[in-house]
């Protein structure tokens, strides 16, 4: 049952194309991105709207003429939308290099769909003075590129964007804390709608929506903390139905390690001698993503989330063919098991429907956890 509180968010997600086409019609340049390692604050500060590309949970047809079947459904689906004209409002794609498939799709998009600006931004893997300097140079490359499509860089504007995004992320993290305490009056499916709308909506509008949402919490009854508490870990999740099934079958998603979730919000901001340094600081110290970190370094973070949320088990949800997640999974599952935390891994194919096997496996998993 969809809560009325999240209707504005659902509306934006469901009408993404019309919503963004209308923004573009007002003369705003829109840049797409796949991965949350794209420096959104910088793009936004230059007067350009960053929008996360979506695409999972749809059949692909046109994209098969350009990419093989063994590329993840997410990027394949986004390309399908691009080829079908659903992203005609984009000025281009900027992508922090985080996986091979997304990097390839950016180039294929440029070759086959076109646009003004395409860039897979090389991001350092180490945290050092030299890597910080390297990353700063890449930020300045990006500034020049965005200027070429009408962007205007000013340190003060970047600082304002950092504050704005920081406030959004903090508001989301506060909701995560409420979730751990069982006081967030939203189902996991509804909460995912709130997250997904944030990838589409310009940040100032989105922050206002979040504030309105949070203000309704005080007058709404706290959600009853029933169901088996679980943590969901994995790659991009766009299908809210997956979470609805988990909660309908007796689970309660209390925490996540998703890039459509906690990984996108923690930490809310960084610090530094100037705004660019603060931007770099946050991107270098993010909650670890498997595409940019070692599995054993992810484990303590995951363990902390499990402890804070009281999750009894971990549900891994991966985009099929997602190398970073698939490569980490056996070690995570083994280490969690050693800590007495059972886990289940399910890969998400491109089908728009959730199949019966998913439901059966979830039911069995929840039975084990009870």
């Amino acid at each position, binding site marked *: 049952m969809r809560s009325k509180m999240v209707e504005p968010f659902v509306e934006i997600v469901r009408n993404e194309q019309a919503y963004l086409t209308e923004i573009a019609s007002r003369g705003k340049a829109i840049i797409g991105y796949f991965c949350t390692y794209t420096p959104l604050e910088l793009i936004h500060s230059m007067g350009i709207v960053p929008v996360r590309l979506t695409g999972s949970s749809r059949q692909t047809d046109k994209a098969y003429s350009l990419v093989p079947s063994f*590329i993840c459904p997410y990027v394949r689906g986004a390309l399908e939308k691009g080829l079908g004209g659903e992203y005609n409002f984009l000025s281009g794609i900027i992508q922090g290099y985080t996986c091979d498939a997304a990097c390839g799709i950016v*180039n294929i998009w440029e070759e086959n769909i076109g646009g003004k600006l395409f860039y897979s931004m090389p991001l350092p893997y180490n945290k050092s003075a030299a890597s910080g300097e390297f990353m700063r140079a890449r930020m300045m490359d990006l500034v020049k590129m965005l200027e070429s499509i009408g962007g205007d860089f000013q340190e003060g504007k970047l600082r304002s964007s950092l504050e704005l995004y920081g406030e959004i992320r903090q508001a989301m993290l506060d909701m995560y804390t409420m979730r751990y305490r069982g006081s967030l009056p939203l189902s996991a499916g509804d909460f995912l709608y709130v997250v997904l709308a944030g990838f589409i909506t310009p940040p100032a509008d989105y922050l206002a929506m979040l504030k309105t949402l949070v203000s309704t919490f005080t007058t709404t009854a706290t959600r009853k903390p029933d169901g088996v508490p679980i943590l969901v870990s994995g790659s991009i999740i766009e299908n809210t139905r997956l979470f609805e099934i988990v909660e309908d079958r007796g689970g309660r998603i209390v925490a996540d390690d998703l890039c459509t979730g906690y990984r996108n919000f923690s930490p809310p901001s960084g610090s530094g001698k100037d705004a660019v340094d603060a931007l770099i600081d946050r991107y270098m110290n993010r909650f670890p993503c498997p595409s940019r970190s070692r599995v*054993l370094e992810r484990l303590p973070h995951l363990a902390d989330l499990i402890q804070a949320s009281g999750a009894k088990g971990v549900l891994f949800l991966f985009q099929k063919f997602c*190398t970073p997640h698939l*490569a980490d999974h056996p070690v995570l599952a083994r280490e969690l098991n050693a800590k007495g935390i059972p886990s289940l891994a399910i890969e998400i194919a491109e089908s728009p429907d959730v199949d019966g096997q998913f439901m059966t496996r979830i039911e069995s998993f929840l039975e084990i956890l009870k």
Partner: protein
Amino acid sequence: MEKSGKSKKRLTTAKELSRIIIEYYQECNQARGMGKPVGWMPPMNGGIEIFYAMDLQPVFPENWSPICAAFGLTPENFRVTEEMGYSRDLCGYLRNINGYVYGLMKNGGGPLGGLPEPDLIISPGAGCIPVMKIFHIMEERFPDAKVFRADLPQVAVEDIREDHLRYAVSEINRLIEFLTEATGRTLDRDRLAEVVMLSDRACALWDEIMAYRKSIPTPFSAAEIGIMFVMVTRQGTQTAVDYLTRVRDEVRERALSKIGVIENEKVRLFWDNIPPWYNMGLLNYFETMGGVMVAETYSAAWSLRLDVKNPIETLAMKSLMSYPMVSCVSIKKRKEMVLKACREYHIDGAILHSNKSCHPITLGQMDIKRALEKDLGIPSLVIDGDHMDERNFSMAQFQTRADAFMEMLLQKK
């Protein structure tokens, strides 16, 4: 599954390669006994020259995968990996080496004496995601090894500028400091200059050898590309230079005498992507119908000439360029290289291996296919496969498509 077997080798020097391979792995296994630290590292970067210059032993787990495939060990390695919970959708190199280090190697097995355990691991923040994950696995498997976390962000070849190079230089210098501290050995700059000179000499010979393939008929085919072994494992050594000199002499002799791979070369083919290491005979498949695999994308990775006067800078540039040049980081550059090769090698048709084990090389193939057709009128055949996992390859399907493709090319002639 029906196989076409091992590749047929016409070059005497290609047959000599097995001795070079045996000697290399003997050297790897004897290194520790001789007090020489062993380091595991990814190929295609300047680390190899630094290692040889510091008299350290480089070992390349990625190169071990083709060896395992040639010895038929891959299924066993895959079994071990899959039993550990790894998905069959992961790159075959990752599944093979993981299976090897947790299976045969633990039990003291493996061909050519197996791989020696590493004292050092050069773990890349660079290249493709699977290669990074391979080294993360190795870090866990060999906890006593000292680990260097390298960092070379993926930048398109055409976008490399002075500050990218500066960062790569700082990484090479950091590597030298790490190796000095970890092994107690110092880098003799004169020795490094000598190694870089030898490495560049190998590249020059490589280019010369590849250039002879433009001759009609071509003196050797992709089926003998195993000679690449010395470029992967021996760059910067006299061994590589001596061997490639012999290969060059033989290839030159064949080219000048117009000795081809087959008697009547009718169709010249190009191979894109990593070959199926478990079935290299596939590269000879077209020969019965007059088709010869004249050139391939992969060999271009070894064509990077080095500036012997600036050893550190040149190794930094090599490290920056190698991966983007043959991957989807730079589809424009790759397309340009394939088109140039197809023009220069007088190619009639291209075989594009849609390789489930390699996303970075497979992505962009359809754009290359279209450009070949549009710009050069060269048709392509896409074949589904996998460079390591033969379960993802159907010989019957390949034969059906390959036969029809060859018939079409022959009709065009």
